């Protein structure tokens, strides 16, 4: 009796384990499905002209997203100019100077900001830049992405800087080196690899953002390298083509999606590789 009850408990435990495994598989399933369809639908449309040509008008077959790919990088450049110095120096404050209470507050605000829907950043920057300047612009799009990056990078860089052992700070200060020089030349330099990793991850994350660009960068069918004019971006172009009624544009959307996903995943994989060797070095 007792024996069989115990056996039943063991079986139940096994059943629940199997159920949890099933759930894990279901969680991963969309990843596999999305990848499968991206490759099936998109691979055929990714060719040389996709990377070199401008979008063709409706009805003409072919064309590419060259301007959108370059535009995405331009937007990321502006975003990095805003987000990286602000975020890293903010992280320096948290890691090197802040008091327990102030740090708690600032971290809390960062976590809250990271939960703000990205579309909100779009309309805020619209009100902040597009309305006064009276034009959608690359600058506005970059600023929106930069704002999203700031809290991400503050949190990341604080974490990375706290990994730098205190012994290095003490050794530098004991040489009579001023604190700010110690922070710049010793702490930031020691943490450089981790910081670069974090910045790349943040860039990969905002590279796929569409909602904040809808009313800021706006999109553009042509080349634009002027900060004050609308600019194309890969996610915007994917969105525009996906909701269009034309089959050829749908194919282009899949191709764009494949390129965008490949870029973000490449960064993610590269970063994982970097962090692995970093944590191995620190463990040593």
């Amino acid at each position, binding site marked *: 009796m007792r024996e069989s009850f115990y056996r039943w408990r063991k079986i139940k435990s096994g059943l629940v384990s199997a159920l949890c495994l099933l759930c894990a598989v279901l969680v*991963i399933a969309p990843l596999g499905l999305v990848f499968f369809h991206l490759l099936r639908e998109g691979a055929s449309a990714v060719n040389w002209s996709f990377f070199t040509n401008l979008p063709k008008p409706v009805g003409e077959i072919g064309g590419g997203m060259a301007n959108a790919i370059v535009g995405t990088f331009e937007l990321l450049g502006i975003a990095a100019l805003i987000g990286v110095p602000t975020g890293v120096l903010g*992280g320096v404050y948290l890691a090197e100077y802040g008091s327990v209470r102030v740090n708690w507050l600032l971290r*809390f605000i960062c976590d809250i900001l990271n*939960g703000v829907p990205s579309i*909100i950043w779009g309309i805020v920057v619209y009100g902040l830049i597009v309305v006064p300047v009276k034009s959608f612009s690359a600058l506005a799009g970059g600023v929106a992405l930069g704002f999203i990056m700031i809290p991400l990078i503050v949190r990341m860089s604080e974490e990375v800087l706290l990994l730098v052992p205190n012994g290095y700070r003490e050794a530098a200060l004991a040489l009579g080196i001023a604190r700010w020089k110690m922070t710049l030349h010793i702490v930031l330099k020691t943490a450089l690899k981790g910081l670069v990793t974090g910045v790349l991850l943040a860039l990969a994350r905002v590279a796929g953002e569409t909602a904040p660009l809808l009313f800021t960068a706006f999109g553009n069918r042509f080349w634009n390298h002027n900060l004050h004019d609308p600019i194309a971006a890969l*996610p915007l172009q994917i969105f525009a083509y996906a909701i269009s009624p034309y089959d050829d544009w749908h194919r282009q959307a899949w191709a764009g999606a494949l390129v965008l996903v490949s870029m973000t*995943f490449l960064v993610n994989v590269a970063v994982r590789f970097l962090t692995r060797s970093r944590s191995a070095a620190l463990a040593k």
Partner: protein
Amino acid sequence: MITATASIPESAQERMVAPSRFGDVIFRWLTLVMAFSVLVLVILVGWQLWRNSSLAIHKFGFHFLNTSKWDPVAEEFGALPFIYGTLISSLIALVIAVPLSIATAVFLTELAPMWIRQPLVSLIEMLAAIPSVILGLWGVFVMVPFLRLAVFPWLKKTLGFLPLFTGPIYGVSMLAGGIIVAIMILPIITSVSREILRSVPDLQREAAYGLGATRWEVTRIAVLSYAKNGLFGAVVLGLGRALGETMAVTMVIGNTPQIVASLFAPGYTLASVIANEFTEATTDVYLSALFEVGLVLFGVTIAVNLIAQLLVKTFVNTSAGAVQ
């Protein structure tokens, strides 16, 4: 005993430049300003949304939130259908995502063999890295046709007696929106739940094992009941993300401002109405109404995130304290 350095006219000490407090003060202030920029950002967002929506707030007052007429031509704006759509799609997403995510987190921390854990975690992180617009693309061209042709007819046949599963089937629908949001919030709920479960002190588990409990009993009695507040926090955090999901939802929910019981019918959310109509808003009142939609969305997500962060942080701190 003259020191070896005495032969050099200038000692190293003399060659070094006099330290100045100046650099330290400037650098400290610089980093302080940068750190507090996040506070400035919060204020900036609130102020922009408030200022730009003042026209609509003035004109419609509280009725903005409880009327359901959205008529740009007549300049009458009520956000109720969007609030309804946001809540229902998020609710559907939670119903689907919470059990799956928590079970996955339990599997990852308690049940799975060690070698499988890290690869699984990496895969979940990859899912989180898929941009919303790409999931939307997949939703429109793969998921929605599949739902329309296979899943929805079956649901209608078997559960059609419920008002939730009645009416014509278009494919794009509240249910499709809910499912796509569920996919988007799976990774965040899973990874936060995993962190919560990992912060449960091992003492809890050992005590239960000591009583001869099976693996699942240990998980249920010692881990899950201990961690339930933290897990609730993870769920609320997922809700916060669900409420603000924009692109993917916009692409599959149908974008029709209506309040109907059927989940097969198209709906509309706060975020997707902004995404769709913002650039078409030709009049000041229309634009202002959309800003007010943004303000509502911002207010709700801030409140939900605040609660979630407090729940999660309190849990992680107290259980970390319990270890020491």
